[in-house]
């Protein structure tokens, strides 16, 4: 199955192939993807497919990976690999998503693709047990140690009130394209973790954020660096005991994926999926007020895709 898909894609119909593989049952005929990025929706929400099919559909709807990754560019993908747990617990971004993102970037002509996280648990165990290390075997992506302080550089954040300077991983600073691939989860401290909060894994000192108004820091980091693309894995969000989870009863199958260039919009939509109002997750209104994106889902061009009835 795996090989077949790769061979198929190699023929060059990246977008088309992705569609033909999804079990679309005629839905896409009614709602075709826009051809050019100019018409691309502000946010794409997909439901009821496999992770890979939903990701393929979302990327196609945003104009294909070529809209984000130009040939010869360097790409960094930042999934959530914070915890030494198996994929069933929903604490990390699913390896299928990471693997498919790497493939798409590869097909778009990326020169280098790097994947990392500044993990909470022991990094080698988290990389292994999340399934992401194995998923990247045989791909062109490099899985980089996020626990190596020498790879981080201090940068100043202009116009910040709390996060005045921050030590950021050089891959985020130096790569041409930064793709954010969070998993949607309950979070005991910040209520919810998704797109913007995932950036806590690209900095060295998280304690500083916790100590200096967590929500404000989460929003202010986006003023320094916004991802080119946010892919939210909401296949089975963790509804409680987050962000680590205690066992598989903490997740609820939702079969959803959200994609947007706007991290504020992605978080706003994700908040709704967990049953929150976006304004109740404090870093979302702060980020919206800073002009980092839109949290007003009613006024947004959202493309909603149902993959199977």
């Amino acid at each position, binding site marked *: 199955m795996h090989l077949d898909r790769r061979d198929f894609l190699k023929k060059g119909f990246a977008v088309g192939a992705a569609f033909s593989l999804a079990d679309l049952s005629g839905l896409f005929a009614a709602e075709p993807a826009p051809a050019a990025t100019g018409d691309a929706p502000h946010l794409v929400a997909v439901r009821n497919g496999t992770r890979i099919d939903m990701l393929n559909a979302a990327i196609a709807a945003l104009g294909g990976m070529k809209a984000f990754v130009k040939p010869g560019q360097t790409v960094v993908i930042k999934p959530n690999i914070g915890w030494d747990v198996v994929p069933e617990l929903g604490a990390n971004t699913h390896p299928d998503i990471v693997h498919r993102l790497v493939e798409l970037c590869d097909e778009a002509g990326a020169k280098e693709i790097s994947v990392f996280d500044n993990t909470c648990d022991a990094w080698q165990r988290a990389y292994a*047990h999340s399934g992401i290390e194995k998923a990247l075997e045989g791909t062109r992506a490099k899985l980089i140690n996020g626990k*190596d302080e*020498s790879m981080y550089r201090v940068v100043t954040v202009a116009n910040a009130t709390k996060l005045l300077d921050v030590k950021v991983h050089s891959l985020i600073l130096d790569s041409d394209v930064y793709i954010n691939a969070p998993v949607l989860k309950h979070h005991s401290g910040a209520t919810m973790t998704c797109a913007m909060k995932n950036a806590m894994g690209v900095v060295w000192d998280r304690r500083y954020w916790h100590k200096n108004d967590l929500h404000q820091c989460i929003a202010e980091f986006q003023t320094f660096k916004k991802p080119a693309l946010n892919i939210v894995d909401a296949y089975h969000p963790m509804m409680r005991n987050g962000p*680590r989870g205690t066992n598989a009863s*903490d997740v609820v199958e939702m079969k959803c994926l959200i994609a947007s260039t706007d991290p504020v919009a992605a978080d706003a939509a994700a908040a709704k*999926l967990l049953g929150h109002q976006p304004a109740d997750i404090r870093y979302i209104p702060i980020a919206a007020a800073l002009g980092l994106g839109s949290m007003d889902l009613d006024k947004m061009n959202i493309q909603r895709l*149902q993959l199977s009835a």
Partner: protein
Amino acid sequence: MKLSWLKPLRVAVAALFFTVLALAFLGAHLPHPLISLFTSLQFVPTLIALATGTSLALGAIIILVVTLTAGRIYCSAICPLGILQDVIARVATLFRRKPFFLRYAPAWTKVRHLFFWTTLLTIPLGGAGLAVAWLDPYSTFGRTVSLLLRPLVLFANNLLVPLAEKVHVPGFYRADIALAALPLLLGVGAVFLLIAVMASLRGRLYCNTICPVGTLLGFIASRSWLKLKINADACGKCGECLKICKAQCIDLKSGTVDTSRCVSCYNCLAACDQGAMRLATNWTVSPAAKPSDATQPPDSGRRQFLLTATGGALVAGASLLPDISRADDHEKKHGDGHGKKRKYKNVVTPPIAGDTDTFLAHCTACQLCISSCTTGVLQPAFLQYGPQHLLKPRMDYSKSFCNYTCHRCTEICPTGAIPFLPVPQKQITRIGMAHFNKEHCIVSLYHTDCGACSEHCPTKAVRMVPYEGGLVIPEVDKSLCIGCGACEFACPADDKAILVHGAPKNKEARRPSEEKPAAPTANKDGFPF
């Protein structure tokens, strides 16, 4: 029969033991059955494991049987400290201009007995305590490699990381280097220096004077079935065997080998081209030979033995130093029931279901768990457990925390001081208890959200409950806490607001239950936006 092949065989086995154990103590990610295989034949650890009933470790029994059969093979081929001394002696010869060799020297019997009885008598008097821990050769090797060599190797590794990246060699990662307290480093360094000097000047003198295992096995080896003997008729007294004998135990004048000091390296068998040195079966000697054998075995003086035993007992008494870890002001702070009656209150042990005293009594401070720890939370204690328990592992939550799904230290501990715990059992084994202090908490200090402690808590013993102004603040469910230290490590407050105290009374925590599945939100299939 020509037996010169015994030496290369010994060298090969020794190289294997040395390499695997050195890598293990350097912290290489070797599979634990491999490490356990090579520690399962270490004398003192397996003797402790068997004697305390923590595991059916037969290593010590096997070594006793082997020694009674063929002499101190353990000392030459299995004991990593013995092999290390051979390596040091070999390196030392590289720096010598003049040819150098050791002559026969008489045994230092009194010193041997002093150290042996000291070690033996401290066991009933004060647990494994100081003497066993500091004189077990396997543990001494472990400390030398783990505490002295490992930081140097990691430093070199960290220099190589950028280089490896440039030439695209994968598998090199920067490692955190944790140095033990300076007095500990100096102590371990001094012991190593003593051994190194002795080894480079006098071969296996350490093994034949200080090492209690050497003395015990020497006593048995002098009565072993197979022994090295000199065939006086064939011996031309050329002295080739003397040149390569590291134990200085071949006396050509009397034509005897002191088998209590012979470490069965078999160098002499390979060196003797006259066929005079041979392995003879000892228990079938002719009656005529018996009296001469029995007249003066080097360690047979019974009076001397008793004399040194008394001296040993006195030294043993000195190892029973007062336990200073009890003193604390915890009770003053928190009132009745806190501190006082519990020793080691603020020291957290590795994951053990038993009590701290038993753990300390069985641990020889070999550092294998510390070198193998996946997060680096296990660090050698200084005075935390008391001065007689230097270098035994403790949880250092300023460095890291215990990874919930890891049980590596319980897999590899060779003495059974950290008995094996399957992961599900380890996950409810309580080694400490989190104590929350609201006055230091970010949420109450600055009125902003934080929750780093709860975020890291793997059992959700630390959960966030409603607080002023829509904020949430930590609360500890003591029934769920296992004392892993994730909360303490993660706490961003300068003065930690959550601290784990060790030695809890109730050793088993409640397992985070498989509650009712979390409720889905209303929008079953559609989009809530």
